[in-house]
């Protein structure tokens, strides 16, 4: 399961707009360096950033 899918499982109310790099409140990023996807920005006004345990 990808990072995006894990977050969607935790917060089903999130939509793709929330992940838009232009106006979204959440930015997932991958720098193509072999380290994989990560949360680069979490500025959602009501939903807390998932913990590492929740995303494991």
């Amino acid at each position, binding site marked *: 399961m990808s*990072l995006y899918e894990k977050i969607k499982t935790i917060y089903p109310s999130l939509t793709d707009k929330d992940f838009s*790099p232009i106006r979204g409140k959440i930015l997932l*990023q*991958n*720098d193509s360096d072999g380290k994989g996807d990560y949360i680069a920005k979490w500025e959602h006004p009501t939903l807390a950033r998932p913990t590492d345990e929740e995303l494991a």
Partner: protein
Amino acid sequence: MASINIAGDTSGSISLTVPSVAGTNTVTIPANSGVVMVSGNMPAFSAYSNNTQNVSSNVLTKIAINTKVFDTNTNFDATTNYRFTPTVAGYYQVNGALNFSVSSGQSAATIVVYKNGSAVNYGNYVTGSYAAILNISLILYLNGSTDYIEIYGQLGGTGPQFIAGSNATYFQAAMIRGS
């Protein structure tokens, strides 16, 4: 029309000395602290992706631009970081393109240029397409030492891919003016 021909020595180099007082010159050469920009010292590169890249949905992902067409000043890293770090300060024209496809559920796609690790300009933003080419074009200043630029893309849907190809997924920059 009159012309002046200057013959170089056997090395092909010619040195011009700027007079210390005002004369009747009709061509202005920058002050002696400046650098005359000629094609030989204005960095330019063009590179593309030659490997289709499987990426995660809704994740802004650096495009692995891994094949150079040209790189006049060896300033583009096509093996590790896929970034352009010019060693001459000035203003650069930057172009990028991303050919993408998704298998289903496409929601949105966009292309972004990053400067020093942060988004600086966004290009095309399309919705509802299963395959398209996104473009971006901008002019920005790079300091010639630490500044670098990279190119990222984000796709929605399932099975998102950055499609390889010299004519569709590429990254280019060329100096257009000194600082």
